[in-house]
């Protein structure tokens, strides 16, 4: 068994600075899967904002206009419930996939790991493979070093800037943004956010890399709460592998030839043979490396593989288990509710705001007046006309509301109305309802409740 050096530095401090990690390149099915996932996700990210649908950017969270366009659907801040639902669905999916297969999120979908992969690929292109990179870093300054490092920086900066532009393009129409960029006519805050996100990408994917996962990511620390003994995780089959050792005579040895390839390819620099560790981002590089070695020495694959704790300890394992079913049921319910809500979404929304300054006003003729503002929102793609009416106890009537209110397509109108009531038999507080109905489509109506206040009855 190889000794793992436990280093104490000269000053006797417990802290040893972590060494820069040069992951060795590896090929195999998990790496192909990861590359595929990266292409899909990055493709979606970089191309999506350029996709137009009906003359409009298909995915645009138009912050300056406070309207959100998602594949032909339009949302307003009033549709907040859908955003909340989406966040809950995202969280539940994370639970589900973590319980099923460990850190699938980290290995395949997390922007941190995906962009790190791309930055490493560019680094490999500019500086060569692992051995060449190590040599280059150790070499004294030379023109070649400058050229290679310069090329890497150039590629990184271009990609980071492009990423920043794309990011802002999700929030501000990207074609317009691109045009104004070419004219050097970007707004101050747009430029700021492009630089901010670009710089964050450059720093996180170029330099911080796995340090973010190890030291900063909260998910890495609490994901263990979603694990159980039936979760598929990357495991080293110690029963089969030990006692590890190199050499041709294997009678007294297990299948692990201690080539340390699994350690060399690990982007977080751990030894999977020590068991699952929180640093592991489930990239599967060690599986691919070990499978290749096993093929070479003509031993069966799978010394390192996706397995469960139960399986590894020789017990029965059940992948489909109550925990997973509960997560799946909750997810299905929420997604169903969201879909239903979207289908049932009325293209008309009404909010009633009471006048904040006065509860009521007594008019000279003895009538009591309350004032309200109706916020009428026409979410439809066409202009519409609406009528407002009042449902209230006898003696109350709406004052000054016209027969119809015209609203342009996708627009909001704040409409002041007043209600008068005769003081006879008037309660101090009454429930009233405003009804807003579309004139061209009588089934489209909204009823909103409010209250009418009056002074204490005089005897």
């Amino acid at each position, binding site marked *: 068994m190889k000794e793992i050096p436990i280093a104490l530095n000269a000053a006797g401090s417990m802290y040893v600075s972590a060494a*820069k990690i040069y992951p060795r390149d590896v090929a195999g099915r998990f790496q192909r899967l990861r590359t595929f996932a990266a292409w899909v996700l990055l493709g979606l990210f970089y191309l999506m904002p350029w996709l137009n649908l009906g003359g409009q950017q298909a995915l645009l969270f138009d*912050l300056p206009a*406070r309207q959100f366009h998602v594949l032909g659907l339009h949302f307003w801040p009033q549709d907040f419930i859908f955003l909340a639902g989406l966040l809950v669905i995202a969280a539940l999916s994370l639970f589900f996939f973590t319980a099923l297969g460990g850190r699938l999120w980290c290995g395949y979908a997390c922007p941190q790991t995906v962009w790190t992969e791309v930055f490493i690929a560019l680094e490999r292109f500019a500086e060569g493979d692992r051995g060449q990179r*190590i040599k280059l*870093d150790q070499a004294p300054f030379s023109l070649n070093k400058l050229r290679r490092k310069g090329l890497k920086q150039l590629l990184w900066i271009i990609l980071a800037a492009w990423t920043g532009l794309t990011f802002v393009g999700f929030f501000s129409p990207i074609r317009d943004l691109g045009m104004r960029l070419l004219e050097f006519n970007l707004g101050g*805050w747009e430029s700021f956010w492009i630089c901010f996100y670009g710089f964050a990408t450059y720093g996180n994917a170029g330099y911080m890399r796995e340090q973010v996962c190890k030291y900063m990511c909260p998910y890495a620390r609490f994901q263990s709460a979603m694990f159980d003994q039936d979760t598929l995780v990357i495991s080293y089959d110690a029963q089969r592998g030990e006692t590890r050792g190199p050499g041709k005579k294997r009678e007294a040895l297990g299948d692990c030839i201690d080539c340390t390839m699994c350690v060399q390819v690990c982007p977080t620099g751990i030894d999977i043979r020590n068991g699952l560790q929180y640093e592991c981002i489930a990239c599967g590089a060690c599986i691919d490396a070990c499978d290749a070695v096993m093929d070479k020495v003509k031993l069966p694959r799978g010394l390192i593989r996706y397995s469960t704790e139960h399986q590894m300890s020789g017990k029965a394992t059940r992948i489909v288990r109550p925990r997973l079913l509960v997560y799946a049921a909750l997810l299905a319910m929420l997604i169903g509710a969201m879909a239903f809500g979207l289908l049932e979404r009325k293209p008309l929304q009404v909010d009633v705001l009471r006048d904040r300054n006065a509860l009521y006003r007594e008019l000279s003729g003895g009538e009591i007046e309350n004032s309200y503002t109706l916020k009428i929102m026409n979410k439809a793609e066409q202009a519409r006309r609406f009528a407002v009416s009042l449902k209230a106890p006898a003696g109350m009537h709406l004052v000054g509301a016209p027969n119809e209110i015209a609203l342009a397509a996708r627009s909001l109108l704040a409409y002041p109305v007043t209600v008068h009531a005769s003081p006879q038999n008037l309660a101090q507080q009454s429930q009233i309802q405003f009804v807003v109905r579309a004139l061209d489509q009588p089934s489209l109506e909204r009823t909103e409740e409010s209250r009418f206040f009056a002074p204490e009855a005089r005897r």
Partner: protein
Amino acid sequence: MSYHPEPHAESQSAPDLSPSAIRLGAIAWPSFLIASVATVVFFAFVDPLDLNQISFPRLVFSREFGYTIGFFLIWSMTAVASWLTALLLGPQSPP
């Protein structure tokens, strides 16, 4: 005893993150994530222009400015909370 196993036989020992950098990251990054979510939730309800009206009506803001200021205000708050937690969990001075 805390130890960092040497990741690779051939790796060079260029130091990358010191304990204070790790501490800084552990304060800045989670607070950044939470601030992002909080900003989204807050501004989904509140229009920065309305906020401008009830706070400094004499100054003219753009929405972009409002979002930006809002995000950094929230981030600074969450970062202060994280930093205080780090401070309290950190080593105490001897009595």
